[in-house]
């Protein structure tokens, strides 16, 4: 099947001369959940706004289900639902009216049963006759989602949908997003909570200073994430790694006082315990050890800060021992 969203060579330079997006190319398959990650000001909202028709592109093309957003904007936009990052609401409208309004705006005939269902799913049914101004921030966020769902979009953009939403409702929202996916909706979301992307996304894209620097399956990233590193501070300098242990994953530092072992936490290859055991049989003594494990967050921070060495996963310490240790 053809992709639901195709972006090619998209650029955006604002009137101020600031280039917010640089040659973005991306293709989104039907039914996937795609998480767009990036620091503040990276260009996530700008990208979404262009696709939705709120900001004009400087160059490049975008098509939704094969419909170009410039030439066939009516077809393209009627497939899209948008939950913007900011809480833009009419203060004096009622919840029910504003959701019905959104459905009409997108050219759909009234469907009170559907709106009732959406409001119930988003725990807003009790508030249906309330004026929007009387809602809390988290309720307004859910109202924005209800508005976007009211016209049954095939492609849903959630720009930081869980900002300001409490923990239990956030979990509910994750479930809702999964349910929408099951029902066939394609979802593109941005978030600063990396664990949210980890929980929900099928694929992850990282955008840095307007450039899409990485697009990968979440599982592939999780493999990098699964990397662990064991560092041993040796009691004395070691001349050479014993032949039996001469594997690429094990390396000796230049001052010959530190051994590093990198391994997959999935358990393939030699385990950490194996290595420690073999070192002790060779009489290698260490006085301290540390293990570090990379998280998606580390990969992310490293990528956006360090200039995009795509394979390097930063490692954060997860365990450190203070006492001297000797291999058993």
């Amino acid at each position, binding site marked *: 099947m053809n992709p639901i969203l195709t972006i090619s060579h998209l650029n955006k330079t604002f009137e101020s001369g600031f280039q917010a997006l640089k040659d973005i190319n991306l293709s989104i398959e039907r039914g996937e959940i795609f998480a767009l990650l990036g620091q503040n000001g990276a260009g996530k909202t700008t990208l979404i706004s262009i696709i939705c028709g709120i*900001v004009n592109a400087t160059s490049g093309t975008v098509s939704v289900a094969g419909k170009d957003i410039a030439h066939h904007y009516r077809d393209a936009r009627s497939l*899209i639902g948008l939950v*913007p990052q*900011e809480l833009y609401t*009419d203060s*004096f409208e009622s919840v029910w*009216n504003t959701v019905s309004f959104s*459905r009409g*705006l997108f*050219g759909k005939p009234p469907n009170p049963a559907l709106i009732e269902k959406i409001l119930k799913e988003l725990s807003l049914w009790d508030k249906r006759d309330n004026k929007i101004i009387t809602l809390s921030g988290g309720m307004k966020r859910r109202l924005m989602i209800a508005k976007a769902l009211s016209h049954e979009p095939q492609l849903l953009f959630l720009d930081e949908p869980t900002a300001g939403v409490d923990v239990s409702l956030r979990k509910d929202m994750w479930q809702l997003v999964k349910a929408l996916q099951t029902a066939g909706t394609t979802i593109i979301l941005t978030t600063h909570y990396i664990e949210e992307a980890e929980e929900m996304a099928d694929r992850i894209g990282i955008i840095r200073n307007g450039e899409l620097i990485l697009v990968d399956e979440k599982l592939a990233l999780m493999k990098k994430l699964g990397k662990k590193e064991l560092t041993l501070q040796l009691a004395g300098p070691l001349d050479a790694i014993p032949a039996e242990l001469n594997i690429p994953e094990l390396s000796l530092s230049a001052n010959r006082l530190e051994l590093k072992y990198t391994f997959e936490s999935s358990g393939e290859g030699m385990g950490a315990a194996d290595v420690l055991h073999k070192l002790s049989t060779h009489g290698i003594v260490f006085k301290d050890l540390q293990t570090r494990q990379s998280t998606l967050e580390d990969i992310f921070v490293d990528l956006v800060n360090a200039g995009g060495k795509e394979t390097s996963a930063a490692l954060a310490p997860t365990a450190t021992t203070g006492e001297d240790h000797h291999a058993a």
Partner: protein
Amino acid sequence: MLLNLYGIRAIYEFEMARTRRTLMQSIVAPVISTALYFIVFGSAIGSRISQMEGITYGAFIVPGLIMLSLLTQSISNASFGIYFPKFTGTIYEILSAPLSPLEITLSYVGAAASKSIILGLIILATSAFFVPLRIDHPAWMLLYLLLTSVTFSMMGFIIGIWADGFEKLQAIPLLIVTPLTFLGGSFYSISVLPPFWQKVALLNPVVYLISGFRWSFYSIEDVSLWLSLGMTVSFLMVSVLAVIWIFKTGYRLKK
């Protein structure tokens, strides 16, 4: 989907609902101020002015007063209608909806013009309480009501898109439209002016609107009916072209 009728209806109804919420401001206030004009100009001062072009002064000013309200209210309703979503940010939804520029304009301008027409008819009915009214050409009267409301709602729509602050929103009606209406013969026939000022008055677009509208009441005219009608339609065309240009360029709506 050839025309997004549900979308047009959604915006139109939203705008009309806003009017109902602000009934005091949008209907009651203009009616009260018009009644005051009648009491002051029509009865108090008007009793000292014998007649204007063979019409009692109170009756003479009715078309001009309706025009005054029509122009200021069309502009303020339409400009506010589109400026406010820009101000609150809710415009994002309008821009992301499958609506053509024509449909967006139709909905906002249609709603603002509807309000103005309703208001104009209410003022007309109010004036009947104060002065003896006569409408020689009702169909023309309604046509002028319609053309003027649509044209100035369109101008208001443009102002609302252009304005980037509440101050600018109020500046045009206050600084331009009200003076032009007062000077455009709302309260007098421009034939009473000295010849030089009559020529200057012809540069004022509102003169043509008021002249044609007053003709529909009393069959008297400052300028010929066809000139008046031609000018009125020209204003409408200019506004339409400006709106088309705005949407073509995304002017001040899209970054």
